[in-house]
């Protein structure tokens, strides 16, 4: 792990905090922590942010209310609420750390409390889209500053001195003129009586006095519990009288149960009951697929019981889904014009008149998330009340869906958010929690629904499958004058609306129509593709196929014209400028263009940085090669260099990875590095092995033996991470997802450099062995 900048310096906060008068909303109730006091402060409006983000447009927007997020006990313990879901990004530490920083709390005397699902109270809780720091850096600072100001005012009154003479420092308030000090705990009761400072009067800390932000010296709050087995994931919840359930679901999405014979299952020791689970018609959104549940005294018995069930299914409308045939359909569709989404100049004419046309047709298959913790949830439904414990990325959405599914008011549903044993987008869909709720209601007892790994792979919400076809037209000098990119893939929207054949704005905005190259004639098109299984968000989503196609094509153009990959890339990116694609209502990760434009200066910068630090052009041993790729996603900029080694039997290893990221102003560089290290491994997994295929409507893979992921012995030997120091007015941007997309194309470009073989279809599988 390397940082090019001094992580102690996170500059510029003072400049981009602009505070304005805001409309007050009703102050929400505090948490009622015993012996604590709660702070009251105005709820923020978006106008009070120096840069606007899309946070306010999320469901239920942003709540900036210290009474909701902070309490101080008489014992001095500061409790800060983490309202986003922890799936490994470190967010449960990072956001409370921002509050602690700004309120001068000593982190060793801070406790983090996980919020339940309640978006009216906490604001939006959807932990996806690499949004948490981007949307909450400033609100969390304001919450902390409000708390600090109230503690300072209370101390000033106690001593009878002007508030300007006192200062909160490391968990106490100090009057330096007299040398007096009072701890936060001693001030808690008085501070609670203080009036709430107005946002416009809030003084935020000078970043040069930061103790925690930007430094990366604080471990995650769950570190000790994780290493001792005490951390509680969804799978670990146990309630008195709880039953254990596994469910046999339709092997084909949209299929229905015709008949089930429970007799053999009921003979298994420990099995108590076999019951049908309601399913919803295709496309079923996040609703359960239905099937047959086996209820037992432990999970092992439930699994054994399920194996003994005799089941008859009607496979329904998707029973003919076949990945081999579907790939041909996608390829054929990509060779014909499709819905034009971006048009600049005349790409058709320019391609006709071009001196040379390079065509790349890239295929990327379905992927499964396979988080180490398969979907699991516990529900306890009593009468018209429901309590859920689940590892969900969508605590608010889960609460809404449980209420709707059970037909009870949302106020009667409590969603307790456990740690997530990985998420990657799978746990944004709460079908597993809904299954538990339905079963608990019918059983009249608490129940845990455990998905097996096979269930996870067979009945997931898969990453889409796509063909990306790019045609690049070059003039005599080798300059690219035309670019036509057709993307054909079933849309996530198909899971919500029958008959969907075009990709949604949020999908086409992920590397298709926002393509940043400086080319005179551009056409981005989307031919039709229907869906035959559940498609869902997978870490980085459509950026995976788009970055793969675009960055592979850069390598192909360099290859065809005999130029260096990096030079070719910089030439295509072109001059430093703000790219404004000719696209109606361009989707920009939900963010306003003013705060988060497509900035080619930043794109160039990460390429140049990774080239310098990653020693682009260095001599590598025979059989090794270097590849490079860059991609903007989740409004961050990331460039990766991969060194690959391919031996004479085609065995591929990765000795070194270098990645540069510009994610604007950041909180925890240590967790940024861990996300990027992990993204390289996820990128390598999908490039090397990742493929879910269908035959007769059924997924053909079942577990980690035939849906492989990278293990330690074939993981990159070293991954170096370089973080671009933020400029003074740079808003924070995404970290969790953007590391994934550039990895695979950098790898594929490296393989070409090493072997002269150009891979256009993933996974690589045995393609190098021939």
């Amino acid at each position: 792990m390397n940082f090019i900048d001094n992580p102690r310096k996170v500059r510029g906060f003072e400049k981009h905090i602009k505070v304005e008068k805001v409309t007050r909303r009703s102050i929400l109730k505090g948490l009622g922590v015993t012996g604590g006091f709660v702070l009251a402060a105005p709820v923020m409006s978006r106008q009070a942010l120096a840069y606007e983000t899309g946070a306010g447009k999320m469901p239920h927007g942003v709540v900036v209310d210290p009474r909701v997020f902070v309490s101080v006990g008489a014992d001095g313990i500061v409790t800060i609420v983490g309202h986003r879901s922890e799936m490994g990004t470190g967010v449960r530490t990072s956001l409370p750390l921002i509050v602690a920083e700004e309120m001068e709390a000593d982190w060793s005397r801070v406790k983090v409390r996980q919020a339940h699902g309640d978006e009216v109270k906490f604001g939006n809780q959807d932990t996806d889209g690499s949004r948490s720091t981007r949307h909450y850096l400033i609100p969390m600072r304001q919450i902390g500053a409000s708390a600090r100001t109230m503690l300072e005012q209370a101390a000033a009154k106690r001593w009878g001195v002007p508030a300007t003479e006192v200062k909160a420092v490391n968990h106490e308030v100090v009057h330096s003129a007299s040398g007096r000090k009072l701890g936060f705990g001693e001030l808690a009761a008085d501070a609670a009586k203080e009036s709430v400072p107005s946002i416009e009067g809030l003084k935020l800390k000078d970043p040069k006095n930061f103790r925690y932000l930007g430094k990366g010296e604080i471990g995650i709050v769950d570190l000790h519990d994780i290493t001792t087995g005490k951390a509680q994931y969804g799978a670990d919840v146990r309630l008195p009288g709880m039953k254990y359930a596994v469910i046999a679901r339709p092997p084909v999405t949209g299929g229905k149960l015709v008949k089930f014979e429970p007799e053999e299952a009921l003979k298994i020791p420990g099995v108590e009951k076999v019951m049908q689970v309601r399913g919803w018609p295709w496309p079923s959104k996040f609703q359960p697929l239905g099937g047959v549940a086996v209820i037992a005294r432990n999970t092992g018995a439930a699994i054994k019981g399920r194996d003994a069930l005799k089941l008859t299914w009607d496979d329904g409308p998707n029973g003919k889904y076949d990945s081999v045939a579907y790939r041909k359909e996608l390829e054929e569709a990509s060779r014909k014009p499709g819905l034009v989404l971006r048009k600049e100049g005349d790409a058709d004419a320019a391609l006709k008149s071009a001196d040379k046309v390079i065509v790349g047709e890239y295929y990327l298959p379905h992927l499964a998330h396979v988080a180490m913790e398969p979907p699991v949830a516990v529900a306890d439904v009593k009468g018209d009340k429901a309590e859920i414990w689940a590892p969900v990325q969508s605590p608010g959405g889960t609460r809404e869906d449980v209420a709707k599914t059970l037909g009870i008011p949302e106020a009667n549903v409590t969603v307790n958010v456990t740690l997530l044993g990985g998420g990657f987008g799978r746990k944004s869909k709460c079908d597993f929690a809904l299954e538990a709720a339905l079963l608990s209601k019918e059983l009249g007892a608490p129940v845990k629904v455990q998905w097996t790994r096979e269930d996870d792979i067979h009945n997931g919400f898969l990453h889409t499958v796509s063909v990306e076809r790019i045609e690049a037209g070059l003039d005599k000098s080798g300059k690219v004058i035309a670019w036509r990119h057709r993307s054909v893939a079933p849309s996530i929207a198909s899971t919500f609306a029958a008959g969907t054949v075009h990709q949604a704005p949020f999908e086409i905005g992920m590397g298709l129509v926002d393509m940043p190259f400086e080319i005179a004639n551009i056409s981005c098109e989307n031919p039709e593709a229907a869906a035959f299984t559940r498609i869902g968000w997978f870490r980085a989503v459509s950026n995976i196929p788009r970055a793969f196609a675009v960055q592979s094509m850069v390598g192909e153009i360099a290859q065809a014209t005999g130029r260096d990959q990096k030079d070719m890339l910089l030439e295509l990116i072109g001059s430093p400028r703000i790219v404004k694609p000719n696209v109606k209502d361009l989707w920009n990760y939900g963010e306003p263009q003013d705060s988060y434009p497509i900035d080619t200066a930043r794109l160039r910068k990460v390429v140049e940085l990774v080239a310098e630090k990653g020693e682009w052009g260095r001599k590598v041993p025979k059989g090794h090669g270097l590849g490079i790729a860059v991609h903007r996603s989740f409004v961050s900029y990331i460039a990766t260099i991969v060194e690959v080694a391919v031996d004479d039997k085609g065995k591929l290893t990765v000795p070194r990875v270098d990645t540069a990221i510009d994610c604007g102003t950041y909180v925890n560089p240590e967790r940024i590095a861990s996300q990027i290290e992990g993204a390289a491994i996820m990128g390598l997994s999908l490039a090397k092995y990742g493929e879910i295929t269908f035959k007769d409507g059924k997924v053909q893979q079942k577990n980690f033996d035939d849906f492989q992921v990278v293990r330690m012995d074939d993981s990159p030997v070293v991954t170096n991470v370089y973080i671009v120091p933020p400029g003074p007015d740079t808003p924070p941007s995404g970290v969790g997802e953007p590391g994934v997309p550039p990895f695979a194309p950098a790898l594929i470009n490296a393989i070409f450099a090493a072997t002269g073989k150009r891979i256009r279809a993933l996974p690589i599988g045995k393609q190098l062995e021939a």
Partner: protein
Amino acid sequence: MIKVKINGQEQSWDGDPDLPLLWFLRDEAGLTGTKYGCGQALCGSCTVIVDKQAVRACITSVNDVAGREVTTIEGLHPNGDHPVQKAWRQVNVPQCGFCQAGQIMQAAALLMDNPKPSHDQIREAMSGNICRCGCYQRIENAVHLASTGV
């Protein structure tokens, strides 16, 4: 009635002797630190130590460990300060953390067998344990640190 010693405590089981140890630990004995990840000994999340050897609890029956000593993550060290655990914290290994109990138990077993493993020996010994978050670089560093003194 099957008797088995878990983390130094005698436990008994009179249910299905074929019940995988994993589910006995988690659902019957309430030791949830050992995780389910695949059920087929493919991912290592359920790794426990039986008489000084790392085993996958998902394919080991309660009957298989009758009369033997099982150590789970909860029993590795009374204060959680086994050198491997300390090294893990020093290197900030975990992301989501779900696989880490299995990784730590595997690493502890490796060091019992080979106190100074090489780079390649660590990578080989740990490759039965999948981490989907991709913490491998740090796991390797932590095992190395634990083997050289934390």
